[in-house]
């Protein structure tokens, strides 16, 4: 992937730009997000809801090989007010439930799997095996997303 040489710029060539999957994801993500933010900026309409929307949209668009991204896209396109992915009350609810259940082992595990399903976009429509593997790459993508967001934010402060 070459870019234009301008005066003092140093050009870095890549032999296999698409080999490292986390790099691919990060590249796609930033290339989706930054122009979207710019557009938002121009429209002078940057409420936090729409920025979140753009952030989620960028995530979904950069990870299109995974099942959960499709569900996320659906959610985003269907609703203008995106559902917030989690809230702190969920965590408290989990703790309460596990205290009440006592020694019911199988039930606990089932409950937790269901909680996990709720966290993953589209998790409720998957079976357990699928969900577990999707959770794995969802976590990875979330991590990369936080890194990208951090770098964008840090750059401006």
């Amino acid at each position, binding site marked *: 992937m070459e870019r234009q040489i301008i005066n003092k710029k140093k050009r870095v060539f890549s032999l296999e730009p698409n080999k490292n999957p986390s790099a691919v994801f990060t590249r796609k993500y930033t290339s989706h997000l930054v122009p979207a933010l710019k557009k938002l900026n121009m429209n002078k309409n940057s409420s936090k809801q729409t920025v979140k929307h753009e952030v989620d949209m960028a995530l979904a668009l950069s990870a299109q090989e995974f099942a959960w991204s499709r569900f996320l896209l659906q959610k985003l396109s269907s609703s203008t007010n995106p559902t917030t992915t989690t809230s702190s009350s969920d965590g408290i609810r989990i703790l309460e439930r596990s205290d009440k259940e006592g020694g019911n082992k199988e039930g606990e*595990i089932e409950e937790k799997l269901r909680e996990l399903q709720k966290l993953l976009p589209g998790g409720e429509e998957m079976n357990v095996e699928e969900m577990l593997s999707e959770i794995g790459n969802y976590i990875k993508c979330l991590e990369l*997303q936080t*890194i990208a967001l951090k770098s964008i934010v840090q750059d401006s402060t």
Partner: protein
Amino acid sequence: MLEGLVSQESLSLNSMDMSVLERLKWVQQQQQQLQQVVSQSSNNSPELLQILQFHGSNNDELLQSSFSQFQMLGSGFGPNYNMGFGPPHEAMDECISRTSSCHMEPVDTIEVLLKTGEENRAIALKNKRKPEVKTRGEEKTEKKIKIEAETESSMKGRLNMRNTEASSDTSKETSKGASEIQKLDYIHVRARRGQATDRHSLAERARREKISKKMKYLQDIVPGCNKVTGKAGMLDEIINYVQCLQRQVEFLSMKLAVLNPELELAVEDVSVKQFQAYFTNVVASKQTIMVDVPLFPLDQQGSLDLSAINPNQTTSIEAPSASWETQSQSLYNTSSLGFQY
């Protein structure tokens, strides 16, 4: 280890019928000799190496090779006995001829000696016990490797299939094995001693193993999961981690929304952001936004990125902005020596 197996066999043999005992002891002696011969040959293992290579696996792991050796031993007895009393299937014959080609010398002696169906049945029974008497620890690794071997060449899969045949008595299983040999990718589960070998429990066990394999993968991803044992604890940690990540994203996007009007974003800067994104991980301090969020295992990944950056990454570096200089300039300078054209 083989001697241990043989001694255990002898113990189990003592509980069998007296009428068959003498014959069995005699056969067992033969087997001992055979095993010694095979173990000697496997120590040198030119033939076994051939077999390993022939199976087309490029895996050099010691565990896998030792495991394959055990497979060899198990299969070396199995198909030959099946030939004794079962109707030979064409596919099986093909496999048998390939894999046992190296075993022909020592095994022939056993074939010649065993003529009666009774002996074959007894030996098949013993054979079933012998692979099961293998150390439990190996069974677990076997299963792991077997599950991974799903995606490898079909030859190896056939070999695995034969092992499961050796471990289950019913002819229904063998016919199921023959038909499954045609498929390239299937699940094989070893029935442990005393466990049911019917289809449902096998399938259930296979499913459970898949799930536990995925849980192990998640355990590696989620930091801090190693300390917790048990499914429930791990799931707790995972849920916690996902929630933390999502909260972080939310927080960062709020921050971004606040800062958005002040951002001096230009499209060319996109690449700068990408480049920073790689380095932020390495250069950034250990502080995270959420107090209790542990640093991602991407520490290693970050350094991997850094090492991978030399051949693989591409960015075009603009004249650095002021903020960029302060942060990653030093790092960039050290690594740019490899970059410049």
